[in-house]
């Protein structure tokens, strides 16, 4: 079941003349959805990201792991320019989405964030009904037809594996839902504006194990249609759901590779120490 089409929303304002695309050099034939080159980010004097070069493949889950303060969330936020909101943040280098530099001055940041949606650690539903939580984004993007909105609400709640649990109380407050349900609602809310990339920052860390497994199953479903980048402290979650895993430390991307390689035989000793819990 695909989410309702929202044809009348302009997808992007960037011009297509400046396209750049890369193919992974591992011969896998995968498509690179996002890539970063020589990416550096500073918060004031603090150097938070150091020379990050990375390819994010389409329709895969890329997990980013690393200790607190290693830069993984900062990196995630740089993929849809959320760091723009932090006054002291300065960025050098580049991030490309479908071959287009998202830090170009003429990029429409709102359109970018529509294509690259984000789910946060704590579920943050709006103080309104379940229905209105989902329809809020499409309405903001210009959809007024109620039948259309109903369609979007149903299809995205189904895509977020929440429909059966809430279909009889769509007009109740979102705060009546459990934590795990609220998080799936937030995922549905992101899906409602038809993104291409989902950035997930610790999406299950505030949830109990059953809700966590539901979110993980959902992520695996979602990667069929979306490109997912997942930041998690829980490396077992990374190993369960992701196809590729990157390890961040002190603002650097120490190592990125196929998830099984990272967890069975990492190349870098620092990665090895971290995933074996032998850090410091």
């Amino acid at each position, binding site marked *: 079941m695909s989410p309702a089409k929202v044809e009348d929303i302009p997808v992007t304002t960037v011009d297509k003349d400046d396209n750049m695309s890369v193919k992974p050099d591992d011969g896998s034939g995968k498509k690179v959805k996002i890539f970063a080159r020589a990416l550096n980010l500073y918060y004031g004097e603090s150097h938070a990201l150091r020379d990050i070069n990375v390819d994010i493949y389409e329709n895969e889950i890329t997990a980013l792991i690393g200790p607190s303060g290693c830069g993984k969330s900062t990196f995630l936020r740089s993929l849809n320019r959320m760091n723009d909101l932090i006054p002291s943040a300065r960025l050098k280098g580049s991030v490309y989405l479908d071959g287009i530099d998202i830090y170009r001055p003429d990029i429409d940041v709102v359109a970018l964030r529509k294509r690259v949606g984000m789910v946060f650690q704590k579920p943050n539903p709006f103080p309104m009904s379940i229905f209105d939580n989902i329809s809020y984004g499409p309405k903001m993007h210009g959809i007024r037809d109620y039948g259309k909105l109903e369609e979007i609400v149903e299809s995205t709640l189904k895509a977020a594996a929440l429909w059966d649990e809430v279909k009889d109380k769509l007009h109740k407050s979102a705060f009546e839902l459990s934590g795990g349900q609220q998080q799936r609602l937030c995922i549905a809310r992101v899906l409602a504006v038809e993104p291409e990339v989902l950035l997930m920052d610790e999406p299950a860390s505030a949830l109990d194990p059953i809700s966590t497994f539901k979110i993980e199953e959902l992520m695996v479903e979602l990667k069929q249609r979306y490109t997912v980048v997942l930041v998690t402290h829980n*490396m*077992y979650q990374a*190993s369960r759901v992701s196809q590729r895993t990157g390890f961040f430390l002190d603002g650097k991307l120490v190592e990125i590779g196929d998830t099984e390689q990272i*967890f*069975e*035989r*990492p190349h870098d000793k620092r990665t*090895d*120490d971290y*995933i*074996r*819990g*032998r*850090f*410091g």
Partner: protein
Amino acid sequence: MISGLMITSEDALANRSFHTGEVNLRNMDAIQSTTRKTFDAQLKELEQQLLKMGSFVEGMLDSSVQALIRQDSELADEVIRRDDVADNMDLEIETACMRLLALQQPMSKDLRIISTALKIITDLERIGDYSVDIAKAAKLLSGEPYFKPLIDIPRMAELTKKMLRDALQAFVDRSIEKAIQVCKDDDAVDQLNKGLLEELMDYMRKDPKLIMQSVHFILISRYLERIADHVTNVAERIVYMETGELRQIVESHKGA
């Protein structure tokens, strides 16, 4: 009598370099950590159990061949009884591995150490079983003098025991080179086995009265050859544990 022989095997343990004094696990990089002390101690304990089991089945192999050479059916009986101990060690180690897997969620090399232990104990347990087979043959053959002096079988047994000892040492030393050498050493055992088979076939053709002993010698030779193959498996696992790469070390094992 049991305790006497057990002491003998314990003595054999004590003479092994890695059993002298403090546990000589100098290359075990996991030990240096400070963050997972309990887990590290459990892994260390697991390695100790593995080495103990390895030395124990080596003792069984040694005694079974001694029983054969000396036509000592009491010693053969003793080897047969010791099989229960080896089987128990197998179960204990498997239980410890499963517990570590379930409770500690090991990753990377920790995971490889545990999966290696799980594979190795099966090979060690089989070596114990073959030693029992040799002991049983030794009992059957203990009643009458051999028609020819045993030469190749003791040689095969020495080579096989050395392979097992080297494999255990490679495990302790974390030595890929030593493990690969063990795999290569297997060829000599295979050659002896083949040669012995041909020689004994000849004897049987010439004199049917020699068939009974010859068939048992052929079987024993085959058991030793199989033991060496299991030791080769152990050595291959050690390479995997160190490198994370699963591969066959010596090609010729496919056919042999």
